[in-house]
């Protein structure tokens, strides 16, 4: 029901929206909850377990009941709190967790069989018969479980992530937060003031307090205007600070576009990472309920939500309202409602010594024992002394006291402290480094107290920042008393609700204690209390008080469960903003990328690089045809491929040779100028780190190449070795991977192609290198081969890469050669028995790959000592071998090797396959793998088994070098 003359909504801007297919009207400035209340919609959702009709309980982000789905053009967002969602024209809302409709929900049958569905029901019921679990129980439970629904499509909405930095982050813009921000800002601090609401002011916008003799909202307006005008202040409305992390970093979620009609490119939400030198938590407090029979009926609400709905939105949720309280805070609510012309039927105050309230009926020492009205409250039963009376009301405001919003103070393992005076947990000082807590969040509930605490928190923080004292005159205001007498539950027979969102009752908690789940953490998990989207904001303290009562231990001994981030739900889409599709990881493109794509090459991702898989020709229908052709082309004429992805590290200095000898297992320093050497690098634990080549470009100048996969790893390793072991050596290195475009030219006609490209014969011996001029560009030429053919690698500055690639390709094609891709490159190296990281996968040693003689006996190197440990060499090791199937059957990488006739068990495994390919040269499938004592077993026949892909093939064990074992072609 709308109340004239009340609220901060814009009545000149009516807004229509749809809820469950019906069109309703509201105003700009309404939340969905206030607009539904204005339209007298009482049932807005169904509860999680029993599907009981539920109404709006609160006016804040802690709302457990009014969870709805927002239907957008590209999104369907479940579990949106109606109390947080602001109204905009065309907002489309659907209730959730009901079927077929909100008014008639078939699963409400759960409520009728509730006696059988107590806490632990699943654990007890679905134990037997065991075979029913997978086929019957689990699908049934899955169907019934969960709140809301997803569209089943990708979330194509726009989200954003951002960083912010400040001297002081003030969390919450109520009286304490505003006072903190104002004091700090006037002292010149760089301030961020964040509040989850659309407007700054906090409870001052709801309660009719006075500051400096005028309505508090006027003071708020003045402060906000001043803060807005200051360049050192950033006001972040609609921003919930959700987590406190190390080093003054906070997570915060901003609703950027969720409160307005979708606009192109406008983010829905932004996930902020705020780095603050100091922070002040002024997040206020959350009112808590009292458990009594059927206290979940629509119309039973938190007392403090009533003045919020009245004064911010100009609505009241009932015509005849009662208040049930155990403290003084609901008195002001009663006065506000009366003043607005709403009938307050009675105040039921559990305290026998409660104060009177002029003009109102106050039942002292009384309790509400029951609420009636399935689809909306009709009546409450009041017990006082031994008598019960019934009172017709359509709304009941409940205040069981206030819990400081101290969640963030516990995000780094802090534990709160129990205050008997407040009957609430309060934060411990210093729980978050650099954070102070002020106002209601610290258990200071009066307006005056909040303002004073805010100013003090600012003063202390400014001092810590070295920004002076920040003295600001405190405005004059009242200091209303709180006077709470704890009341957690009203005794009674029926179900009294603690956790509305997860349908946990007082009885469930008592049952948990009775069944031995007496620790608060066990109770939580047994009953699911506090595990719903509200994360127990409305129920944790009451539930542990009930548990304390049931176990006879007291609240302090019972303790709390752990408060973890996020404070309010954060969409994964916001945290992962920009990470969908291409945004998942950086993409590294070769200079030849476009030329390869122009030829229809499918690109495959290797590391972050995109490399051509193969180059299909007309008429070829499978990758194998292209691959076989490319392999044969390299073996018979000439092939060109881009190898720029290999890591290139430029190493210089008088101690460079010494350094290389230390990081490579073999000796490199003796290499003559203009020569290249193959090198093996070990990790400190003696296993192979990487292999590659090292070229000597000058007296003190070397160029190391690494594999594509380990380029970064090797760079990091070199950096570590230098910093840790030889910081004073005169050696420096820099990555030049990106600086040079490098192409491999391989095949019997490779020399002819290089001659054509350079206009002269290369004149290089095998493993030689030289500088060259390529079409007028200074480049480098290496005679190295990864294919087993005569091979060259030609490098030019990256800017010329594409031009050289196209030129080499054209020249190769006139010679009957052409491009080859990764597939052919892989087959060529398998034919030659060359290893890649498929073989040096981190568990293999130099001995395993047959290179133990490359660990020089004449010098020390990283990994040498560890490689000499027992067990790192010998017949027990799995050693690199080649395998050829006895039949024309494909073999698979990842398959296991077994001796013939043994059982196929883990213990009997003799080895495994790392690389496979079909060799058109040898006209057989080939495999490389590791076999126990493999080098001594050439000639044996083994079973190759891949149970995942159904492969069972007999293979002959052979030398891993299938092609040109003497290397005659290579050295031609």
């Amino acid at each position: 029901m709308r109340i004239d003359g009340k609220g901060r909504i814009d009545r000149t801007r009516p807004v229509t929206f749809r809820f469950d297919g019906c069109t309703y009207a509201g105003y700009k400035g309404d939340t969905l909850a206030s607009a539904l209340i204005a339209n007298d919609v009482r049932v807005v959702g169904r509860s999680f377990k029993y599907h009981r009709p539920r109404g709006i309980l609160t006016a804040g982000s802690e709302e457990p009941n009014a969870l709805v789905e927002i239907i957008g053009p590209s999104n369907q967002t479940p579990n949106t709190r109606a109390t947080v969602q602001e109204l905009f024209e065309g907002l489309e809302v659907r209730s959730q967790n009901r079927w077929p409709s909100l008014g008639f929900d078939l699963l409400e049958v759960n409520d009728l069989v509730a006696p059988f569905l107590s806490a632990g029901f699943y654990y007890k019921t679905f134990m037997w018969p065991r075979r029913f679990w997978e086929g019957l129980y689990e699908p049934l439970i899955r169907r019934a479980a969960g709140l809301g629904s997803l569209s089943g499509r990708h979330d194509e909405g726009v989200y954003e992530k951002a960083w912010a930095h400040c001297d002081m982050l003030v969390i919450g813009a109520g009286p304490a937060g505003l006072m903190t921000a104002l004091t700090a800002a006037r002292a010149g601090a760089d301030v961020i003031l964040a509040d989850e609401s659309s407007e700054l002011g906090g409870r001052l916008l709801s309660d009719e307090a006075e500051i400096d003799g005028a309505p508090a909202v006027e003071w708020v307006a003045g402060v906000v205007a001043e803060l807005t005008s200051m360049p050192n202040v950033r006001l972040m409305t609609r921003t919930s600070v959700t987590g406190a992390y190390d080093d003054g970093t906070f997570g915060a979620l901003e609703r950027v576009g969720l409160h307005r009609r979708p606009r192109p490119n406008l983010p829905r939400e932004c996930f902020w990472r705020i780095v603050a030198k100091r922070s002040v938590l002024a997040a206020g407090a959350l009112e808590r309920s009292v458990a009594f029979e059927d206290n979940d009926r629509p119309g039973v609400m938190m007392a403090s939500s009533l003045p919020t709905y009245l004064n911010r939105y100009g609505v009241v949720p009932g015509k005849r309202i009662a208040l049930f309280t155990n403290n003084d805070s609901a008195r002001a609510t009663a006065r506000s409602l009366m003043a607005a012309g709403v009938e307050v039927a009675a105040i039921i105050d559990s305290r026998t010594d409660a104060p009177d309230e002029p003009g109102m009926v106050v039942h002292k020492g009384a309790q509400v024992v029951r609420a009636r009205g399935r689809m909306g409250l009709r009546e409450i039963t009041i017990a006082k002394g031994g008598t019960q009376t019934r009172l017709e009301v359509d709304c009941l405001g409940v205040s069981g006291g206030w819990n400081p919003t101290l969640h963030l103070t516990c995000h780094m393992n802090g534990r709160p402290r129990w205050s008997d005076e407040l009957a609430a947990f309060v934060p411990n000082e210093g729980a978050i480094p650099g954070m102070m807590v002020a106002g209601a969040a610290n258990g200071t509930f009066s307006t005056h107290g909040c303002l004073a605490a805010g100013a003090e928190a600012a003063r202390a923080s400014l001092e810590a920042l070295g920004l002076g004292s920040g003295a600001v005159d405190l405005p004059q205001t009242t200091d209303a008393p709180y006077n709470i007498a704890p009341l957690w539950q009203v005794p009674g027979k029926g179900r009294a609700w603690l956790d509305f969102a997860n349908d946990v009752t007082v009885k469930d908690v008592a049952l948990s204690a009775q069944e031995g789940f007496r620790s608060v953490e066990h109770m939580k998990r047994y009953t699911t209390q506090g595990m719903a989207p509200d994360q127990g904001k409305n129920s944790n303290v009451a539930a542990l008080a009930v548990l304390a009562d049931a176990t006879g231990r007291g609240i302090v001994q019972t303790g709390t469960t752990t408060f973890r981030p996020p404070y309010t739900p954060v969409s994964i889409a916001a945290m992962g903003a920009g990470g969908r599709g291409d945004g998942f990881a950086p993409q590294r493109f070769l200079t030849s990328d476009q030329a390869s794509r122009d030829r229809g090459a499918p690109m495959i991702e290797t590391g972050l690089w995109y490399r051509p898989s193969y180059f299909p020709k007309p008429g070829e229908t499978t990758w194998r045809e292209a691959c076989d052709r490319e392999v044969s082309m390299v073996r018979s004429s000439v092939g060109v491929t881009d190898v720029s992805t290999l890591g290139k590290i430029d190493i210089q200095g008088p101690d460079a040779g010494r350094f290389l000898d230390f990081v490579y297992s073999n000796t490199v320093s003796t290499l003559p100028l203009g020569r290249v050497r193959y090198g093996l690098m070990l990790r400190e634990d003696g296993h192979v780190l990487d292999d590659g080549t090292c070229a000597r470009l000058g007296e003190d100048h070397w160029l190391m190449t690494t594999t594509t996969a380990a380029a970064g790893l090797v760079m990091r390793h070199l950096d570590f070795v230098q910093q840790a072991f030889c910081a004073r050596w005169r050696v420096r290195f820099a990555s030049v991977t990106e600086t040079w475009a490098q192409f491999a030219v391989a095949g019997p006609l490779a020399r002819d192609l290089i001659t054509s490209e350079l206009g002269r014969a290369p004149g290089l011996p095998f493993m030689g290198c030289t500088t060259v001029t390529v079409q007028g560009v200074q480049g480098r030429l290496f005679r190295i081969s990864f294919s087993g053919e005569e091979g060259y690698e030609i490098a030019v500055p990256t800017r010329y890469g594409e031009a050289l690639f196209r030129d080499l390709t054209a020249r190769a094609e006139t010679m009957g050669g052409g491009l080859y891709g990764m597939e052919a490159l892989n087959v060529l190296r398998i034919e030659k028995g060359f290893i890649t990281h498929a073989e040096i996968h981190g568990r293999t040693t130099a001995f395993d790959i047959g290179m133990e003689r490359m660990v020089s006996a004449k010098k020390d190197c990283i990994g040498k000592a560890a490689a000499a440990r027992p067990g790192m060499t010998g017949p027990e090791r799995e050693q690199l071998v080649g395998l050829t199937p006895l039949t024309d059957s494909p073999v698979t990488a990842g398959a296991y090797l077994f001796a013939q006739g043994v059982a196929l068990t883990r213990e009997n495994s003799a080895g495994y396959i790392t690389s496979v390919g079909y060799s058109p040269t040898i006209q057989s499938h080939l495999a490389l793998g590791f076999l126990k004592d493999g080098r001594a077993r050439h000639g044996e026949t083994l079973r190759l088994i891949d149970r995942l892909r159904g492969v069972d093939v007999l293979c002959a064990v052979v030398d891993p070098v299938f092609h040109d074992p003497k290397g005659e072609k290579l050295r031609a």
Partner: protein
Amino acid sequence: MPDLIAKSALGFAPFTLAGTTLAEVDMGQITAIAPFPGQSEALSRALGMAFPAPGAVTQSGDARLVWAGRDIAFLIGPVPPDGLPAAVTDQSDGWVSLALTGACTVDVLARLVPLDLRAAQSGQVFRTALNHLPLIVLVGIERSFTLLTYRSMAKTAWHEITEAMVKVGARAATG
């Protein structure tokens, strides 16, 4: 003249939105200079420019010596003389340089870089990350920035920066 055609990393036209422009720029010669241990001062003398402290840039005429990491700086502009007491590596082709200029540069970079660039001064340099990309940020005048990342990652950098510009632009348009 070389017969091979040189290509820049991107070859894209500048992208302007919300008064902010992203453009690929040619930094010319970039040379990594890493003095050997104890040789910083000798190097400074030989170059006629002080080897920069971390986060700093020294300038002499058109030449800039930009701190680029532990014991390494990038000489931008001239080709360095021979015989320096340092490892000298041509890096001209290893990087893509993007200039971000205009009204919303700081807001755009706040979406990408975990640094507070609001008060960054001309002549400062940062080694940081642009989301997952390695990044060198050179601070120019009037909140303009030159961003250097690996050349092979140029397209990703361009995509991420323009995406951030689009979102900042949409926010600005919404008010």
